[in-house]
């Protein structure tokens, strides 16, 4: 009797991520949701630029590789080409909230009926640990070696909060994958974000607070603790917009 098996929406390609990287968990959640909702055959994913650049090898569906930050614009083309496509982007914090800010904001403003998976680990992982728009005040990175100095470079960007002011956004939720309870909630949010697209409801984004043990200079376990102690207070979990619950 099969108790657990790898999702059919993941390929057999071995993942390249660091030990303790939470991309593995998030990939699994997205894949399981695609299967459970029965949309793997209609899915087209947009890989972005960051540690997750190889998602075009990992998800078992049609995939396109977008330039840094441009995934929501590519997704717009994919969705407008055929609204039957279930289109999702998988982006990191540099991709979505630095170079891709305009594409992120405007795809929401345009009410694009797509699903955006936003992996926020407060750092640029792939290029070796530079400061991200979501790097916390005082956080040490390769390009903020003395700690992020808000006097000089300003404050972190809070994506869910920011997008909640965009009328075109339908559903925005921030989740985390630092413990089992949060992982379950994260999956539910991702499922809702895809169900919204199936139902034609509009732009859905799930911000997933994640760890980067390698570039944070921590063990995987300590990284999970750091996320809980430092990221959760700054980026509170919760629903930032849900047009399903309109006030009368």
């Amino acid at each position, binding site marked *: 009797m099969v108790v657990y098996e790898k999702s059919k929406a993941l390929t057999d390609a071995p993942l390249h991520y660091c030990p303790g990287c939470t991309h593995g968990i998030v990939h699994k959640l997205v894949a399981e949701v695609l299967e459970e909702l029965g949309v793997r055959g209609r899915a087209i994913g947009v890989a972005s630029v960051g540690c997750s650049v190889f998602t075009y090898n990992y998800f078992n569906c049609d995939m396109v590789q977008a330039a840094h930050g441009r995934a929501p*614009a590519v997704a717009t083309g994919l969705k407008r080409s055929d609204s039957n496509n279930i289109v999702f982007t998988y982006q990191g914090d540099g991709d979505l909230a630095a170079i891709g800010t305009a594409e992120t904001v*405007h795809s929401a403003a345009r009410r694009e009926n797509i699903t955006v998976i936003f992996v926020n680990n407060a750092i640029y992982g792939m290029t070796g640990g530079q400061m991200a728009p979501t790097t916390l005040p005082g956080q040490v990175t390769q390009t903020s070696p003395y700690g992020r100095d808000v006097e000089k470079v300003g404050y972190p960007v809070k994506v869910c909060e920011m997008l909640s002011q965009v009328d075109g956004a339908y559903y925005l939720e921030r989740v985390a994958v630092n413990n089992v309870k949060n992982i379950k909630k994260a999956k539910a949010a991702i499922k809702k974000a895809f169900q919204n697209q199936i139902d034609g409801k509009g732009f859905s984004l799930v911000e997933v607070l994640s760890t980067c043990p390698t570039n944070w200079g921590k063990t995987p376990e300590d990284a999970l603790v750091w996320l809980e102690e430092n990221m959760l207070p700054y980026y509170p979990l919760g629903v930032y917009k849900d047009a399903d619950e309109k006030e009368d």
Partner: protein
Amino acid sequence: MSEKVLMKGNEALAEAAIMAGCRHYFGYPITPQTEVAAYMAKRMPKIDGGVFLQAESEIAAINMVIGVAATGKRVMTSSSSPGISLKSEGISYLAGCDLPALIVNVQRGGPGLGGIQPSQSDYFQATRGGGHGDYHMIVLAPSSVSEMVKLTIHGFDLADKYRMTSMILADGTMGQMMEPVSFDDVKINSYDKSWALTGTKCERKPNIVNSLSLNSEQLEEQNFARFEKYRLIEETEAMYEEYRMDDAEYCVVAFGVAARVSQNAIDMAREKGIKVGMIRPITVWPFPKKVLNEAADKVKAFISVELNMGQMIEDIELATRCKKPVYLCNRVGGMIPSPEMIFEKISEITGGQN
């Protein structure tokens, strides 16, 4: 033969795209091509499956083009010089992914914000690729509203045939002028699209549209294969037109609006007994090297008439191996040479009446 209508170049181009089966247009306002977007905004929503979007930037627009192109459908964007610079990244990605698409550049004066009057200053950008990496676009240079139509239709066909980007390299004059034009029925060829992203339906292996390859051997092979394709295109798809070249002793080379004005100047020179003709490239990539190289054996000199600081002149020199002198006759910044100015240059070079 359908009736002739008086139309502005930009709008005729847009209508031609629709005739060619394009159902997706993404654009952004910029002078002197905004009419393309405005025309599409009106027409596309009225067509079954038609999509028009004004994107938040030229960068977003080219990436939307990539999205549709990846699904195997005909798609286009249009802009003018500064906006084409913004699209350069996307154009490189289109090439690296071997995606078909049509891009229109209605050139204006540059560099920088430049001016809004016509130029041909993006010749290098267009013919050398524009973005980073080794690649080419098929570049078509219309010199009439009728060619804005014909070359757009041809451009879509070539893009699909070769899985690459076609660019319509127009200048502001071509975009803004009004001429009678007719739209004949277009035969839309179908090409293999088994590579396109259409959803696996859980029946086939995933298709991947991608330009990344960390394996250098693989990346090199992809480049070699692409350039083998380009070599074939150079051999078979170059287009040009000759004007009064039969007995010509001097050859003007010009495209777009420069060719239109040069024609008048050549007629003036012929009145004075100067035996000058013109070879007009219609594709500037692939450049009509063969006909120019052959002409170099017959004529005494070439005169490149361009609205830039001397760009196509290099391709003429290369194609003719500098067998004969090549002179430049140019205006920039939005200025257009007059027939008199070109005629004076021809006289100067040829020594006047023969």
